[in-house]
């Protein structure tokens, strides 16, 4: 039997391959060796020079991504700021209402404005409290700034309010530091001024004086702030003057209020009824 030896040339590639694999394995193992670190450092230096021009492209791409992310964050933060501002305003208004409620001598029913129609035609406000909450027709509606209006219709859990800016609204008022009384109304000129009639010209009324309810009406308690005098005009052909008032209440931002659970003195009410009966 003859033994056939494989020639070196037949397995040349396998031998070369095995050698290369051994070199590769040696490199992999030696990679962590301290003596090899200088070679690695040199190769990293070379690659850093090669990579340097491309790093600008990478930085640019990264900057674009970062920019997009930051824009998104900015929008979210703006939204958050806007929401927080809104909450702060609401918080301020509620705190003021709370203070007013604690200092008031009357019971109050806190209400929220459900709808607000201040377009100039049949201005009215709908609130979320009605007869079930003790709200009755004629009760004044106020907020921390002053008088809002009076209740004109009540349902079980809702009521309609006649605001200052309604031609049907009337209130007996008094101007501070004087004994000037008059009737406050709105003449539908604009949604920023009310007018007081029937104040004699002999009574000097300066701009900036505060106006509040007089208490002469049985419908409203005295000293509810209403607004500030902005100008006066003598009424032609009469001895009275017209006093224009800018209300304290900002109807644009009005969202919460209180209904003053004010009940007129029964004796006064009875006297008024008897008076009306007597002149029927």
């Amino acid at each position, binding site marked *: 039997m003859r033994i056939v030896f494989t020639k070196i040339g037949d397995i040349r*590639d396998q031998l070369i391959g095995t050698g*290369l*694999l051994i070199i590769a*394995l040696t490199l992999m193992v030696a990679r962590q060796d301290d003596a090899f670190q200088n070679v690695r450092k040199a*190769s990293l230096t070379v690659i850093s020079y090669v990579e340097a021009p491309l790093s600008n492209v*990478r930085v640019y791409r990264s900057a674009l991504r970062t920019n997009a992310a930051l824009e998104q964050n900015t929008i979210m933060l703006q939204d958050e700021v806007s929401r927080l501002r809104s909450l702060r305003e609401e918080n301020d208004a509620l705190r003021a209402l709370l203070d007013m409620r604690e200092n008031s001598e009357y019971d109050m029913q806190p209400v929220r404005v459900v709808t607000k129609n201040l377009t100039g035609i049949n201005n009215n406000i709908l609130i979320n409290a009605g007869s079930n909450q003790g709200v009755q027709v004629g009760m004044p509606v106020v907020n921390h700034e002053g008088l809002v209006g009076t209740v004109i219709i009540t349902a079980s859990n809702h009521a309609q309010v006649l605001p200052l800016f309604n031609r049907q609204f009337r209130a007996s008022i008094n101007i501070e530091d004087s004994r000037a009384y008059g009737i406050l109304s709105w003449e539908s000129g604009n949604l920023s001024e009310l007018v007081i009639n029937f104040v004699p010209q002999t009574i000097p009324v300066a701009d900036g004086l505060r106006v509040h309810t007089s208490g002469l009406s049985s419908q409203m308690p005295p000293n509810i702030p209403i607004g500030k005098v902005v100008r006066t005009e003598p009424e032609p052909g009469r001895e009275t003057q017209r006093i224009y008032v800018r209300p304290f209440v900002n109807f644009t931002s009005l969202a919460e209020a209180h209904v003053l659970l004010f009940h007129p003195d029964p004796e006064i009410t009875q006297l008024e009824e008897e008076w009306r009966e007597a002149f029927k």
Partner: protein
Amino acid sequence: MKQSLGLDLIIAFIFLTMQIMLFRHLDILGLQADVMFLFVLWICAHRNRTYALGIAAVSALMLDILTDTWGVHLFSKTLLVLGAQRLVSQQAENKLLPGQTFMLILSIAIVYNLVFLLVSSFAGIYDTNLMFIKYWIGNSVYTALVGIIFYLLTSD
């Protein structure tokens, strides 16, 4: 094709440069195409095995040096030449259709990337446990796509 060591080294250098400066940065969802793998396949298709082993080893070693992988490319590409040279050179003579070429490149790339990732894990270069399948299959498909594009651009 006429064998020319100088020309092949220049082509190897071009592929090496493309790999380092271009394809390392053209990653898609973290996947990279290995154009040096395509170069080695090309060498296997047009040169004899001993020659291909030499060229592949030199270029793989250069790639190892420049990517700080030290031996991983050399090992896997040497195995690639040893294992695939005969198949690739035979199929190159058969003038395969583009679809068949794509499937051939993809099949070899899947085996090659499996070896490459296992060797990388052994060398402690990549922690491939979490994304093993993604890198394995994803890199193979990406490389095969680039390969078929090269093939279509360079074929008659």
